[in-house]
């Protein structure tokens, strides 16, 4: 998050360990000489969790790496240590959490990949829709939801939205595989709208169920 990018060049292959002051690899989590935990470096989420960048990731591997790293870096491992070690461990664990949360969710992963590719796929979930086809689709779905009078009817909108999300994610995987980033960007926008719709449908359904005393 707040980490400054490391300057290119020598500093990017040798940094000084804060504890023993000797040379350390910028990628090391612990100093190879004195074992001190190091502050997190500016690497992307994939590198941080030891994964190859891409939309298709092995979720089991993601989890394994995340747990493995948290086991070593979580503040619970540094309870009796110096202030510096506690701070770096907290920062490391924070970065791991952010990377994990971003990568485990297909939508957030897609947005992040587009960002890595220099595209500002609007991260704002409230972003307005400008694609006319999507606009049309969105209006129709909203209408259907507004007209839903039973929780079953709202449920139908929800099921539709969820199915569309699933197929959208499959399309997204393909777009990334074929490196069609424009297409991926479009799909991300559509998925954003769909997940918002699904959320509203879920809330509406719960409301209807409650008022019907179900």
């Amino acid at each position, binding site marked *: 998050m707040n980490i400054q990018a490391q300057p290119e060049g020598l500093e990017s292959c040798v940094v000084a360990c804060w504890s023993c002051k000797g040379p350390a690899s910028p990628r090391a989590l612990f100093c190879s000489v004195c074992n001190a935990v190091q502050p997190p470096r500016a690497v992307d989420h994939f590198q941080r969790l030891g994964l190859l960048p891409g939309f298709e990731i092995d979720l089991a591997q993601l989890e394994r790496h995340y747990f493995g790293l948290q086991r070593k870096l979580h503040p*619970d491992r540094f309870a009796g240590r110096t202030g510096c070690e506690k701070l770096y461990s907290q920062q490391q664990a924070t970065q791991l959490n952010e990377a994990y949360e971003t990568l485990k969710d297909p939508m957030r992963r897609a947005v992040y990949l587009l960002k890595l590719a220099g595209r500002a796929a609007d991260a704002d979930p409230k972003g307005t829709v400008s694609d006319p086809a999507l606009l049309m689709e969105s209006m129709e779905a909203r209408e259907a939801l507004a007209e839903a009078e039973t929780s079953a009817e709202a449920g139908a909108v929800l099921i539709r939205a969820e199915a569309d999300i699933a197929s959208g994610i499959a399309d997204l995987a393909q777009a990334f595989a074929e490196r069609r980033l424009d297409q991926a960007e479009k799909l991300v926008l559509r998925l954003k709208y769909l997940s918002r719709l699904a959320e509203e449908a879920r809330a509406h359904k719960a409301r209807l169920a409650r008022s019907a005393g179900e």
Partner: protein
Amino acid sequence: MSELLFDIHEPGQTPLPHAGDAIAVGIDLGTTNSVVAVAREGKPEVLRDEKGQALIPSVVAYGADGTVTVGAQARLQILDRPQDVISSVKRLMGRGLADVKRIAGQLPFTVDGDEQAGMVRIKIGGRSLTPVEISADILMAVKARAETVLGKTVKQAVVTVPAYFDDAARTATKDAARLAGLEVLRLVNEPTAAALAYGLDEGAEGLYAVYDLGGGTFDISLLRMEKGVFQVKATGGDAALGGDDFDHRVAERFLAERGFQTLTADAVSQVLVTARVAKECLTGREAGDWMLDLDGRLSHHALTRPELEAMIAPLIDRTIAIAKTVLADAGVTPEQVKGVVLVGGSTRIPLVRAKVAAFFGQPPLADINPDEVVAVGAALQAEALTRGSDTLLLDVTPLSLGLETMGGIVEKIIPRNSPIPTAMAQEFTTYQDGQAAMRIHVVQGEREMVDQCRSLARFDLMGIPPMAAGAARIRVTFTVDADGLLTVAALETTTGTEQQVSVKPSYGLTEDEMAEMLRASLAHAKDDMAARLLAEARVEANRSILAVGAALGVDADLLSPPERAQIDQAIARLDAACRETDRQAILDATQALEGETKAFAERRMDRGIRTALAGMSVESLEKVAEPVKPGA
């Protein structure tokens, strides 16, 4: 796996410096009862009194002569001198005067109305005390219990809090422990602690729900337990819903049966005690009769279990509705939950069990002792933190954290159920030309409007240089640590002059008040603080010695014999200083060692860079830099 940038192997144990034979305990500081336990080599033990009692009632009696009695003894006095006895104080932790006034009618204590701002005070036994001080008295008794049973002084503890406790209540709990002379190693959420105790014991794997209904709070957490990792997926609850509320329903009925009558606080205490007895009896029996003797008038009250159930069903339904939201948040259906663990005394109520079973479609697991499991988990975590462990707790924030924006709307910065520790930032800008200050109002809660959320802190970022409206960039960063405690920092980023303010919201208690209380309550508070600072200096010195030793191990050839001798001497001096108790001497010797090794460090860096330049280097450095066991 060659594409990996580092290999991931399990770390070994993390032996900590100066672990010595100090022992850290786990404390469940409950609304009704507190429990203390200790774990040694993974074996937890609940610490009991001579009579074998584990539960220490969270009740404090303040005598006119200045004596403070806690626990069963204090509880016995509720009926005799209710004006001097206080219970359920946990319900007031982190609460402001307004909150307390709102629920004051139902509380068996008198709120000190003189106090205008800051933390509420309660009139009790002729004194005026804050909930933090009263909780500290309970914790002191808990600490004394542990010390008596263990025959050692206890200075460190893991203290549990309801998962749904907000930042103010968490901070208040930590302050109470400090006041009681305990260093809080970690605040752990009660359901998470319970899951730790349960999971380790039963070797549970998969998705589990922990349903914790105690005296004053309700929590529900959904966790994944797997190979020593306890990952909380989502949590929810109500910090003001528990057995106490059931007691109130029963009490109201009894009072209605007596006909209208204004009651003294003393009488309220008595009715509540009877109501509670009745409620607990009806767990095992179908019906019963109770008697009230208030202000010289006797009345009889019959109550059946179905009647009790009709009164409390709406409250239990509320817990089920909350459970529903938690599962929805985690995207999980009840069928996916492998087991439901019951925690808290109120889960003994048959209707609670029935409703939980119906919702999850399976009978809950009740083979554990619901009163002790939280303390056991806390004890296991205390050992893990001080002696190292293979298990890992990954918890989340229970409530969203945000800022007030224009129109009183909340902008969420950290959404609820985010794994902690976490840090998130958001940029804001000024809305007036030349605006020099920005008010920052930190709130916690799920609602969209500020006045429906809990206000945690307000502060001003000053000294914003004059700019057109919308030109300033103010970056507000929220950091939540592993205890679930929040720090907020604001920074104007467009100008070189970086103004930074950090706020640790704490409800009412300022550092000064805290210091004052410490002075007042603990004669040896000063010694305690000094001891802590000394311990910190030693830990730091120890790190320094180990780091220099490790460096000498690889690069000693960079030093001439006289240089080496100098360093060795500096190490020896620091080592000697550490054996003494003069903190300043340790700090000076640490500084001296740093100075003595400066040139050595520079040469090591030179060598490192030269190696890197030599080509092959990057790779070899990388290899060297693979993570080794921390602390090995």
